[in-house]
């Protein structure tokens, strides 16, 4: 049952009693008007009776006046006769008018009129004439005749009155019956209507109550479903291995799952309603400055904010954790942000492992370099040792001079190599200006032997010096890695091209701002990297070199280049006509160093 159906029922329940009462009132009106008509008739009968009585009185007055005059002959006794005679006709006419359409009454009244006229003309006038003439009117016959005439008049009048009274009696009985009927009708109507209204209302209320019960059931079911789904969600949130915090649109904490409570050290009751940056206090690992929370960032950018690296969470007790976090807006149906959900996890162990891996790769690079250096130094050293031995064991002066020249020549080589090495492991805390051309030349010199072993020709296209701010030891590690990869890919008999392309600050085709800097390109004409392998190249422990590789070179290289605010990209071609791989490294002249990026 919907609301309009319910309103309909309300209207019906209101209108039906009104209609029923109207019907009762109509019936009552009909009955009352019937009774009223009867009352009118009764009043009419009353009027007729009193009128007939009036006429009878006038006739009696005339008769007694005439009798007095006839007896005495005195005109004073004659007065009542003349008074009554003057309007008896008029009163009879009134009585006639009152009779209306009643033919019986009319007939009686006409008879009365005639009898009166007969008495008046046949007895009264002759008696009056005799008396005036001085005679006596005491004749018995005459008076008997007058009495008979008067008796007729009286009988008529009595008839009229009696009939009127009978009428009246009959009408009163009729009125009583009408009132009785009316009471009965009223009673039955009231009963009938009452039952009708009762039944109808009951029926309507039943349907309302059924609908109400149904609504209650549905509501109950919904509530149960809602409870179930909320329980499921809660269980899911509780079971998630990451910390989850939800905030309202103002950035106040609403809900924290157990992992979030454990990581932050805040309980749900303490944290609820608190501003997020109080509960989730994060700082930059390197600068130790407070970092904008993902929630603030989400509010600012109104989109999902991805994982930020190198963030430390200060727990409630002051201890610190390395974390990775991300935030996403919670939107309502209209798409408005009504809250933010923050997801984070403890990456302290992950970071330690990563650091260990990076250190490992550094050691591996150092080891390889040490071997190269040992080789480079041992060769001339061996010659010098041998020359010294020869001189000590009796050489001619001329020979000694020759040997010393050779020894000097060999020692110069050692010096050259050691010079190249000097810059290699001078670790610095702040970036220094590095000449890329010089650095690449030094690296190529150090790797010369290895490149010859691999039978790879190296060509360098480095037109002029390009300086960038960088950490030299780390850049050396990157370029050594990349050149080694290229040489191994091109071996044997292949070619490796190392080039530097300076780039001026400006704006590219897509409107992206370009930084001033240089792109170092290391290209080989090796077999190329297959498409299915390429996406994995920058992942740790991925190697195509089997036992010989650590699988960390490119991963660490990318880390170092990212730290330098640069980019590293790799394109490769496996087609017969143009196979080979090109790695491009862009370094900015004055980069923003991502501190702690290593």
């Amino acid at each position: 049952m919907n609301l309009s159906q319910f309103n309909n029922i309300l209207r019906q329940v209101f209108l039906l009693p009104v209609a029923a009462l109207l019907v009762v009132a109509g019936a009552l009106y009909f009955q009352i008007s019937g009774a009223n008509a009867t009352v009118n008739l009764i009043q009419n009968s009353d009027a007729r009776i009193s009128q007939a009585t009036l006429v009878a009185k006038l006739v009696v007055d005339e008769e007694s006046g005439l009798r007095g005059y006839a007896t005495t002959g005195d005109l004073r006794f004659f007065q009542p006769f003349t008074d009554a005679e003057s309007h008896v006709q008029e009163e009879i006419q009134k009585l006639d008018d009152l009779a209306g359409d009643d033919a019986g009454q009319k007939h009686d009244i006409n008879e009365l009129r005639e009898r009166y006229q007969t008495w008046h003309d046949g007895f009264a006038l002759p008696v009056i004439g005799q008396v005036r003439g001085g005679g006596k009117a005491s004749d018995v016959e005459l008076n008997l005749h007058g009495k008979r005439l008067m008796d007729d008049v009286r009988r008529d009048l009595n008839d009229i009155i009696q009939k009127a009274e009978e009428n009246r009696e009959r009408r009163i009985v009729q009125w009583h019956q009408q009132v009785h009927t009316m009471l009965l009708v009223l009673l039955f109507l009231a009963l009938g209507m009452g039952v009708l209204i009762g039944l109808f209302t009951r029926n309507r209320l039943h349907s309302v109550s059924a609908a109400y019960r149904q609504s209650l059931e549905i509501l109950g079911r919904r509530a149960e479903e809602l409870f179930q789904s909320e329980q499921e969600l809660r269980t899911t949130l509780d079971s998630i291995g990451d910390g989850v915090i939800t905030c309202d649109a103002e950035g106040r904490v609403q809900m924290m799952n157990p992992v979030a409570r454990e990581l932050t050290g805040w309980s749900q009751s303490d944290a609820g309603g608190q501003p997020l940056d109080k509960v989730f206090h994060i700082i930059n690992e390197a600068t130790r400055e407070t970092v904008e929370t993902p929630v603030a960032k989400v509010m600012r950018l109104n989109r999902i904010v991805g994982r930020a690296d190198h963030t430390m969470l200060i727990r409630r007790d002051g201890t610190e954790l390395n974390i990775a976090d991300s935030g996403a807006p919670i939107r309502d149906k209209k798409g408005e942000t009504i809250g933010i959900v923050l997801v984070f996890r403890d990456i302290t162990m992950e970071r330690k492992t990563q650091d260990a891996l990076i250190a490992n790769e550094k050691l591996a690079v150092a080891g390889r370099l040490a071997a190269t250096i040992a080789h480079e130094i041992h060769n001339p050293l061996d010659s010098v040792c041998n020359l010294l031995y020869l001189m000590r064991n009796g050489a001619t002066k001329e020979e000694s001079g020759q040997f010393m020249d050779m020894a000097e020549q060999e020692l110069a080589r050692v010096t050259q190599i050691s010079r190249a090495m000097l810059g290699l492991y001078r670790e610095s805390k702040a970036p220094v200006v590095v000449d890329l051309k010089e650095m690449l030349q030094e690296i190529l010199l150090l790797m010369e032997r290895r490149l010859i072993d691999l039978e790879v020709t190296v060509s360098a296209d480095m037109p002029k010096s390009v300086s960038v701010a960088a950490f030299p030891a780390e850049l050396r590690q990157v370029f050594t890695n990349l050149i080694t990869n290229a040489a191994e890919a091109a071996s044997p008999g292949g070619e490796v091209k190392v080039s530097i392309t300076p780039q001026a600050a400006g704006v590219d085709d897509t409107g992206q701002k370009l930084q001033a800097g240089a792109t170092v390109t290391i290209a080989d004409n090796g077999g190329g990297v297959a498409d299915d392998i390429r996406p994995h190249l920058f992942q740790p422990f991925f190697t195509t070199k089997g036992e010989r590789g650590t699988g960390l070179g490119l991963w660490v290289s990318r880390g170092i280049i990212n730290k330098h605010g640069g980019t590293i990209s790799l394109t490769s071609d496996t087609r017969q006509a143009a196979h080979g791989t090109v790695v491009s490294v862009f370094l900015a002249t004055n980069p923003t160093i991502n501190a702690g990026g290593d």
Partner: protein
Amino acid sequence: MKQSSNLVLCIDDELVGLQVRKILLERAGYRVLTAQDGPSGLELFYANPIEAVVLDYSMPGMHGGEVAVRMRQAKPQVPILLLSAYMGLSTELTALVDLYMTKGEGAPVLLEKLGSLLQLVSTR
């Protein structure tokens, strides 16, 4: 000059080192042939009655290991002394040759080891 006139083949791509080693061995009484790479060394090895080989490991084209394998195939009785600037060559490689030493250990060690190798052969 106890083992006079033993013919020794020296192979090394380092020209100065090779020259010095030649003078050293000649002073020690050996007859010395030299080659700057694997293939030319092998040619001399096949063409001459070489009694011992002093072989460098890291050389362009064909490294010492490969040269040693071919020499063993041709004349397995000729002792080979592998010289290398690298430390810690793999055992498969060192098993191929009679003796292995790193550069820079000094002339006396080289002469002593070469002498002992030749003595071993002559007493076989």
